[in-house]
């Protein structure tokens, strides 16, 4: 496996001349923009990692007079706070990325869905958006962006739940297919991209796909903004080249006593110390939307797991039974084992339930509860029981 080590990069927060990049992109044809993004190997930065160029290509291929670019700023994964920082510091690049994506797929309208917890940012973002709209108009390009607010529901980060919410309904995920590229917001072809993905696309337009592919590995091109928290002397936001091992990450950010790293938040994977050296952070190893939580040996992994299960039990939308009941039963189950009301072998039954949820749950929330559950129970079984 390729191992690039730990390298700090400055692309996302790099100060650029927005207008220059936009003008360059608008001189390109739709096909050229999509080709550039495809060549860059960029994968979605929200966590799921779908190739951005493909998403744009599929949406571009749809013949509809109305299409949408939606920016997913419903950053709710525990341990993730990079999108807030990106919007706070370089919203012009987020708006620019949306306009470029709009050109690529043939959309005149963009919507940013911002989580309610970040409403305090809105007045500043509105001022910056006004300046952006003026700039776009001066360039002579027709594209409009609107902000819509969430109201405290983690599930609305799921793309189809997010559409439902913008449409004024309960944020309950839809069945797929049809995928958003065919039928998304208001049943129109929609490309929905994470905040960081749009900024990265903007930077690919500036520097070119070739430059971008110098960073990262074959499966995980480029760099990525990591949100670092937990037991670390240096919590915060760091842009790092993809392709480092968890060990290299811990060497930089650990407190000397790191026993586990939760990569990808509550829906991600727990990596124990003995697997630090062999685990690559990226799509070939443990994928992440950027959430990196470090735990030292003073922490009980039972408490960590309990906290995550409590989170999922509350945030499950309740629409499908495997997720609604599954989350509750996993939570009750580990409590029973801890209290000695159930035998430790009961954990095996709970792992089967987590596997069932992965197959039977309707959306990514229920499907990924098992990631944290199985990796924590699998690696720290004694801490769950005793």
């Amino acid at each position: 496996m390729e191992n690039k080590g730990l390298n700090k990069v400055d692309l996302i927060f790099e100060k650029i001349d927005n207008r220059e990049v936009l003008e360059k992109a608008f001189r390109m044809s739709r096909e050229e923009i999509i080709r550039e993004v495809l060549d860059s190997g960029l994968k979605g930065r929200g966590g799921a990692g779908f190739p951005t160029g493909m998403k744009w290509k599929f949406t571009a291929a749809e013949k509809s007079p109305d299409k949408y670019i939606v920016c997913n700023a419903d950053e709710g994964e525990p341990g993730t706070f990079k999108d807030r920082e990106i919007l706070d510091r370089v919203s012009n690049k987020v708006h620019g990325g949306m306009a470029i994506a709009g050109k690529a797929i043939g959309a005149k309208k963009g919507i940013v869905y911002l989580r309610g917890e970040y409403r305090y940012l809105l007045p500043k973002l509105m001022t910056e958006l006004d300046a952006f709209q003026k700039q776009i108009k001066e360039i002579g390009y027709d594209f409009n962006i609107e902000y819509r607010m969430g109201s405290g529901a983690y599930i609305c980060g799921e793309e189809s739940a997010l559409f439902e919410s913008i449409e004024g309904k309960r944020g309950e995920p839809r069945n797929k297919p049809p995928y958003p590229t065919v039928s998304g917001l208001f049943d129109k072809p929609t490309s929905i991209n994470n905040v960081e993905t749009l900024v990265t696309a903007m930077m690919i337009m500036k520097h070119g796909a070739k430059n971008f592919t110098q960073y990262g590995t074959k499966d995980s091109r480029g760099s990525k903004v990591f949100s670092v928290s937990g037991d670390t002397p240096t919590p915060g936001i760091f842009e790092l080249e993809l392709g480092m091992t968890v060990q290299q990450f811990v060497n930089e950010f650990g407190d000397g006593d790191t026993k586990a790293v939760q990569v990808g938040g509550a829906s991600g994977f727990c990596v124990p110390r003995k697997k630090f050296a062999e685990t690559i952070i990226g799509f070939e190893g443990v994928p992440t939307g950027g959430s990196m939580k470090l735990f030292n040996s003073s922490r009980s992994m039972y408490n960590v797991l309990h906290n995550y299960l409590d989170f999922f039990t509350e945030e499950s939308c309740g629409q499908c039974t495997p997720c609604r009941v599954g989350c509750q039963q996993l939570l009750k189950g580990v409590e029973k084992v801890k209290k000695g009301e159930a035998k430790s072998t009961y954990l095996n039954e709970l792992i089967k339930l987590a596997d069932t949820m992965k197959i039977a749950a309707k959306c990514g929330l229920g499907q990924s509860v098992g990631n944290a559950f199985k990796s924590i129970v699998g690696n720290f079984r004694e801490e769950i029981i005793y």
Partner: protein
Amino acid sequence: MYQVGNLVKELSDKHGRARESLMPILQGIVQKHNYLTDEAMVEVARELDISAAEVYGTASFYTFLDTQVKGKYVIRVCKTITCSMKGKSDIIETLEEILKIKVGETTPDSQFSLIETNCIGWCHKAPAILINEMPYTELTSEKVSEIIKDYMQK
């Protein structure tokens, strides 16, 4: 309880009366009054010409669109893992002591409500809370006492 008055009409004029206007309208009411009364929801239903059940069904899905009485200042304490590791319990204890209420309750003078919430995106500056829209981070018992005392003066 508050009188919703002309607010629903004003918000509907501003955001429109299509179904997609529902969230911005409900959010507008909550921004002003911190929660939704039955009367307000019925009024929204009338204005948008949809059933009140649709309005309640939508509102009750979202934790920030509260349908229970809330105070003027809603304090949301993050309880997700990092905040929990970094002293969330001390913050709750301090708040309960100052406000003389428990989590989930509202002060008798309707000034403060204290609730717990899931990750608000400030893990690197834990523990963190929201008071209405404003985040306060890297809290200690002393710091949060000061902040609440300032709000009490408002």
